[in-house]
C-alpha cells in the first residue's frame, strides 16, 4: 500500500504562482493527474541554455533552507511557467528506485556552492532570477544562525531516459570541530560528488570528508571543476586523486560549474552510478536527523532522511536518543525552500516542525521513530556531544552577567553541543565555564555573544578536564586552572589522552612527526597506504591538541594532511600551574596548566606575547610568569613617551574629540588588572599564540 501511495501526488497542495508555500490558500488539485510523466514536466537542458549564459555570477553562494516564501516574479512568461511547473512537479513522488541521495564534498573555494547552484538551476528547482534573493536571504540567515547553518538540502527533479528521478542534495560542513555532523549527513546519502579544483588538486578538508564518505559506503563520483581556467591540469589532478585517495578516476567528470560545462554529465552520473535507497517503507519508521535549527516562531526544525518506513503529518513521533515525543505539526521537503507535503517515505529527505523547544531534544544523529509503532533499534552512529575544550567567559561589565546567561541559554536552544555552568573568579567576577566541540566552535560562540547579544567578554585560555587526585584520597575533576587544588594538596594529576591519526603525502611525514613530538605525542605507528601516502598514529594529550594543532597540521603539510582523533584514556602526567603577574598582580584568567618540561617555553612565550598585546601605560609595567612564587620568565613594558599633540586649528575641536572618544572607548574594552589596562585581545590572543610558539 505504501509503495503504491508513493506513486501518487502528495495530497498537500503544491506551491502555486508567486508563493511557493501557500499552505492551503490556493490549491491546484492534482489528485487526478496520473503518474508524474506529463510532458510539461520535462524540458531539455538546452532550453535552459539562455539562463545558463546569464548566470555568470562567481560569488560564493550557498543554498540554505529558507523559512520564508520566496516570490517568483518572472517577467518572462515561459520562464514563469517552467518554474511554476518545476516547483510543482518536484514534489511529486517517484518510486524508491528513482531516488538518489547525494552530497558534495569539496575543499573551500573549489566550487561546491557554484555547482550546487547550477544543479538547482538546470533542474529548474530555482531560477537564476531568484538566486540573488536567495543568496541575500541566506547570507542574512547564516549570520543569524551562525554555526548551525552548516547543512542544507535540496530536492530536485531530473529526467533520465524519459523517467523522472528525484535527486536530494545534502550539504556538509567542513571543519574537524564538526566532523560528527559531517558523518551524519554523509550517512544520510548513498553517494557523493567529490569536487576537486582542476588546478588546485586534492586538499586536506576534501580528504577527511572523502574518507568519511568511503567509511559510510558511499559511491563517490570524482568531478574536476574549473576546467575552463587557464591553469587547469585535469590529468595531473586525476592522477593525484587516484594516488592519494585511491579512487578510480577512469570515469571522472570534467566540468566547469561556472560555465555550465559537464552539468548534464554530472546529473546523469548521479542517476547511473549512485545506488537508490533500499525500499524499506514497510518497516517501522526510522529517520536519521542530519541537522536541526531553532526557529524563533516554530521551534526546532529538524532535517532528516527517512531510512525505513514513512512519516506523515500529524504522526506522533519519538526521538529515540532523547526520549522526547512530539506531534509532527508540519512535514515538508527542502527544494530548496521549505515546502509542505503530507507524507515522506523511506529514501526521502525532508523536514519536520513539531514545536520542539530545544535542539538538544532533537540532536543530529538521533533517530526519529513512530511513537505507536516503534523501531526496535535506533540507527547506528549517534553520539552525545562531548565538549572537548573548556574556557571561562566573563562579561567585562559585571552588569552584563544576567544578559550573558540569557544569551547562552538562547544559543543553547540552537546548539546542543554548547555546555555551560556558572563560575566566579576573583579577578574576573561572575561568568560561565563553557564547553565546546573545539576552538572554532568556541570562537563562533564568543563572536555571536559579542555581536548578536552586544556583550563585551573576556575569554580565558582553553583547557581540558583534568583529574586531580588529592592527598586526602579525593578525586577532583578540574577544567579550570584557577580551580586546581593547591600544590600541597595534590598527589597527582591525570589528563585526557587521544589517539590521533594523520593521513599525509610522504613529503610531510617528517614535519608532522616533529609537530607531534613537540606536542608530547607518543609515536604509535606508521604505514604507507599508497606509495606516496602514509598514515601516522600518535597518542597525545588532548590539551596539546585543542589549540592550533589542526592549523599547524594544515600549514606544515601545505593543506594536504588530514587528521582525526578519538579519546582513549586518562593518564597521569607531570603537570604544573603557570601563573602570570602583571605589575605584580596575579591575572587568574591567564593562568594555565602545562607540562613541567614546557613551563619555561610557555612562560617566555606568554610574557613576550603579553608585552606585544598590552598597550604601553604611563608607567613601566613588569610582566612575569611564575610557578608558585618562582618567577620563570619576565618582560617589561616601557612607559609611553608622548601622545599625538594635535592642535585644534581654528577652534575645530571635532576631530580631536573624536580621537579622544575613540581612545576612551578603547579603554572600556580593557580589563583593569591593578593599575594596568589589559585589552581583551590579550586574553584571547594569548590562548592561541601560547600554543603556536611551543
Amino acid at each position: 500500500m505504501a509503495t503504491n501511495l508513493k506513486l501518487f501526488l502528495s495530497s498537500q497542495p503544491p506551491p502555486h504562482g508567486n508563493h511557493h508555500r501557500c499552505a492551503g490558500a490556493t490549491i491546484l488539485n492534482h489528485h487526478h493527474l496520473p503518474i508524474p510523466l506529463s510532458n510539461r514536466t520535462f524540458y531539455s537542458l538546452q532550453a535552459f541554455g539562455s539562463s545558463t549564459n546569464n548566470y555568470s555570477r562567481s560569488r560564493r553562494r550557498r543554498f540554505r533552507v529558507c523559512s520564508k516564501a520566496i516570490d517568483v516574479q518572472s517577467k518572462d512568461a515561459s520562464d514563469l511557467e517552467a518554474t511554476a511547473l518545476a516547483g510543482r512537479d518536484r514534489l511529486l513522488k517517484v518510486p524508491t528506485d528513482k531516488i538518489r541521495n547525494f552530497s558534495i564534498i569539496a575543499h573551500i573555494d573549489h566550487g561546491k556552492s557554484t555547482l550546487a547552484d547550477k544543479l538547482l538551476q538546470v533542474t529548474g528547482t530555482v531560477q537564476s532570477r531568484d538566486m540573488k534573493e536567495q543568496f541575500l536571504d541566506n547570507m542574512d540567515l547564516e549570520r543569524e544562525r551562525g554555526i548551525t547553518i552548516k547543512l542544507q538540502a535540496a530536492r530536485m527533479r531530473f529526467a533520465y531516459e524519459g523517467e523522472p528521478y528525484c535527486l536530494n542534495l545534502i550539504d556538509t560542513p567542513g571543519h574537524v570541530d564538526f566532523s560528527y555532523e559531517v558523518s551524519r549527513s554523509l550517512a544520510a546519502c548513498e553517494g557523493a560528488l567529490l569536487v576537486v579544483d582542476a588546478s588546485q588538486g586534492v586538499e586536506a578538508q576534501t580528504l577527511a570528508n572523502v574518507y568519511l564518505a568511503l567509511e559510510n559506503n558511499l559511491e563517490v563520483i570524482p568531478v574536476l571543476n574549473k576546467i575552463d581556467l587557464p591553469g587547469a591540469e585535469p590529468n595531473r589532478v586525476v592522477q593525484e586523486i587516484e594516488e592519494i585517495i585511491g579512487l578510480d578516476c577512469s570515469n571522472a567528470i570534467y566540468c566547469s560549474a561556472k560555465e555550465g560545462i559537464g552539468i548534464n554529465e554530472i546529473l546523469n552520473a548521479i542517476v547511473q552510478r549512485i545506488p537508490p535507497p533500499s525500499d524499506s517503507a514497510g518497516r517501522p519508521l526510522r529517520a536519521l536527523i542530519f541537522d536541526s535549527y531553532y526557529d524563533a516562531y516554530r521551534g526546532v526544525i529538524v532535517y532528516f532522511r527517512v531510512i525505513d518506513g514513512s512519516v506523515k503529518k500529524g504522526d506522533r513521533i519519538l526521538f529515540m536518543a532523547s526520549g522526547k515525543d512530539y506531534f509532527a505539526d508540519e512535514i515538508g521537503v527542502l527544494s530548496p525552500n521549505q515546502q509542505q507535503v503530507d507524507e515522506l517515505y523511506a529514501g526521502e529527505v525532508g523536514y519536520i516542525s513539531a514545536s520542539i523547544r530545544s535542539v538538544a531534544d532533537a540532536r543530529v544523529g538521533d533517530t526519529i521513530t513512530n511513537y505507536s509503532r516503534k523501531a526496535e533499534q535506533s540507527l547506528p552512529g549517534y553520539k552525545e556531544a562531548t565538549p572537548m575544550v573548556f574556557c571561562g567567559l566573563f562579561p567585562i561589565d559585571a552588569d552584563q552577567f544576567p544578559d550573558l546567561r540569557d544569551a547562552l541559554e538562547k544559543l543553547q536552544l540552537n546548539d546542543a553541543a554548547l555546555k555551560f555552568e556558572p563560575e566566579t573568579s576573583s579577578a574576573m567576577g561572575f561568568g560561565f565555564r563553557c564547553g565546546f566541540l573545539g576552538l572554532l566552535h568556541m570562537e563562533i560562540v564568543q563572536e555571536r555573544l559579542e555581536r548578536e547579544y552586544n556583550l563585551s567578554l573576556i575569554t580565558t585560555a582553553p583547557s581540558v578536564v583534568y583529574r586531580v587526585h588529592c592527598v586526602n584520597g579525593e578525586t577532583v575533576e578540574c577544567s579550570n586552572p584557577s580551580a586546581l587544588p593547591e600544590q600541597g594538596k595534590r598527589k597527582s594529576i591525570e589528563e585526557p589522552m587521544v589517539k590521533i591519526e594523520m593521513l599525509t603525502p610522504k613529503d610531510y611525514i617528517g614535519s608532522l612527526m616533529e609537530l607531534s613530538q613537540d606536542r608530547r605525542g607518543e609515536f604509535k605507528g606508521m604505514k604507507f597506504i599508497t606509495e606516496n601516502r602514509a598514515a601516522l598514529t600518535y597518542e597525545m594529550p588532548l590539551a596539546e591538541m585543542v589549540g592550533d594543532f589542526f592549523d599547524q597540521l594544515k600549514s606544515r603539510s601545505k593543506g594536504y594532511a588530514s587528521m582525526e582523533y578519538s579519546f582513549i584514556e586518562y593518564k597521569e602526567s607531570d603537570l604544573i600551574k603557570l601563573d602570570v603577574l602583571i605589575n605584580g598582580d596575579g591575572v587568574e584568567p591567564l593562568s594555565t596548566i602545562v607540562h613541567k618540561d614546557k613551563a619555561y617555553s610557555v612562560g617566555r612565550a606568554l610574557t613576550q606575547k603579553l608585552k606585544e598585546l598590552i598597550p604601553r601605560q604611563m608607567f613601566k609595567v613588569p610582566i612575569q610568569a611564575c610557578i608558585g612564587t618562582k618567577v620563570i620568565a619576565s618582560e617589561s613594558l616601557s612607559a609611553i613617551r608622548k601622545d599625538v599633540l594635535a592642535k585644534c586649528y581654528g577652534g575645530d575641536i571635532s576631530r580631536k574629540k573624536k580621537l579622544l572618544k575613540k581612545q576612551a572607548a578603547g579603554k572600556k574594552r580593557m580589563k583593569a588588572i591593578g593599575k594596568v589596562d589589559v585589552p581583551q585581545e590579550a586574553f584571547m590572543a594569548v590562548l592561541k599564540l601560547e600554543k603556536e610558539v611551543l
Partner: protein
Amino acid sequence: MLKSTVAPMLLTLHTKTKSNNFLTLKAATFCSTFPQNPPTVRRNASTNTLTIETLETPSYKLPPASAYVHLPFCRKRCHYCDFPIVALGSTSTETADDDPRISNYIHLLIREIEATQKTQIDQHPPLETVFFGGGTPSLVPPKLVAKVLETLRSKFGLSLDAEISMEMDPGTFDDKKLRDLIGLGVNRVSLGVQAFQEELLKVCGRAHGVQEVHEAIEIIGSCGVRNWSLDLISSLPNQTQEMWEETLRLTIEAQPNHVSVYDLQVEKDTKFGSLYTPGEFPLPSDTQSAKFYRMASRKLGEANYNHYEVSSYSKSGFECKHNYTYWINKPFYAFGLGSASYINGTRYSRPKKLKDYTNYVKNLEDGLIDCSQVDDEVNEGEMAMDIVMLSLRTSKGLEFKSFIEDFGSEIAVELCKVYEPYMKSGHVLFLDDQRREITEDEFSTLVLDDEKLENEIGFIRLSDPDGFLLSNELISLAFGVIDP
C-alpha cells in the same frame, strides 16, 4: 601672571544649576563701532573687558565676541598639510593682487558674513578678537582684507582694542604690505617659520627658505609689531636634536612675545602620510620627539615664556586672546572655507570644498541654514567632555568648582579618583583655590571624604611637560568618567 590676566576671562558654564555666578557681558562694552577710526596697533594685554557678572545666560549662549576668518590661499601645499586650502601656483605676490580666485573668494566670504544671523539682533557686542587663518592669509591683498574687516565691523562691530591676528608666511609680504595691514587694524602677526634649517623647510615643501625667515622677522621688527608669534613644528623628518636646539635658540633671539610649537602630526592624505609612519625613521622616535617637547618647554621657560597651553608659549600678558576663547569654551563665529564655528552651544563646520562652500553660502543667503540654531538640548555629557578636553590643554586647568556646579559633584569626584594614580606619578596636579599645589599626603586624606574633596580642590591641571605630553591619554580617562 595667568591668574591676573587670563583667569578673569574664564567662564563659568551653566547647564542645569542656576546660580548667581554667571559671567556675561558688561553693558558698557556694548560700544558702538568706529568705522572711520580704525584702531592702531596696540598691546592687547590690556585690561580685559569681557568679564562682568550679570545673570541668566550661560556664556556659551552669549553672542560671540570672536571671529575666525579662513583665507585658504597658498602658493603650494606643504607636505604635512591637510587643511582646506587653495593652491595658487607660483604666482608672485605682485600679481596676486588681482588674482580673480582671491577676489571671488573674498566676495563669497563677505556674502557669508553678511548673511550670517546675529544671535542678538538689538544689542550685539563688538568683536574683541578676529583671527585670519589659512592657508596663507598674507597672500591676500590688503585692500581685500580691508573689505572683510569692514564687513565684520559693520555687521557686528569691532572693539577699539580688538585683537586682530593674521597668519603670515615668510616671503609673502614686504614692509609696505605689513604697514598696510597694520593700517587696517591688524595688530598681531603669527609668523609661520616652522624651522630654521634649509633642509627641513625643503622636506616640508615650504615655499620659503631660511633667508626669507630672517627677512620676515626683520620686517616685523621694522614695522613695530610688538605682538607677534613665531610658529614652529617639531619632530620633522630628519630633524636632529642639534637642529631643534638651534631652532629654539634662534627663536628666542628673534624675541617674539609668543611662540607656538606644534608637534608634527602625520595626516593620512598628505604627502607625509604616504611617505612616513609616526615614530619611524626618518621621523624621530616617540622618545626623541618627547625629548624635543621637553626641550622646548625648558628652553622657552628659561627665556621667560609661559607654557600656557599644550602647544603655546607666551611672554606675560601676550597669550593669544583669540585662541583662548577656544580653550575656555567661549562661542566664536567662523567664516570661510572649512571653518568651524561655535554659536549657541552648536559647533558647525563649513564645507571644505570650494564648490560646496559656494552652495553653502547661497543656502545661507536663502535662509536654509542656521548654524547658530538654539539647541535647547545641548548634550550635557558632550559639553562636559568639551570643557575637560579644552581646559586641560591649558596651564590654568579645569576649574573644579564651576565644573561641579555645571555637571554635579558625582562626576567631579569620580574624576579626582581616576586621576589619583596620575597625581602620584606626577602627570596631574591638583591645586586649591589659591592655586597652591595639593600634596600627595593631603590628597590621600581628601580622597577619603567626597565633601572635603569638593571643597578643597580648586583646579585640576596637567603637569608641564609630563602631563601635557600624555594629554590624550589623560583626557580620554576623563571621557571614560563622563560617559561610562
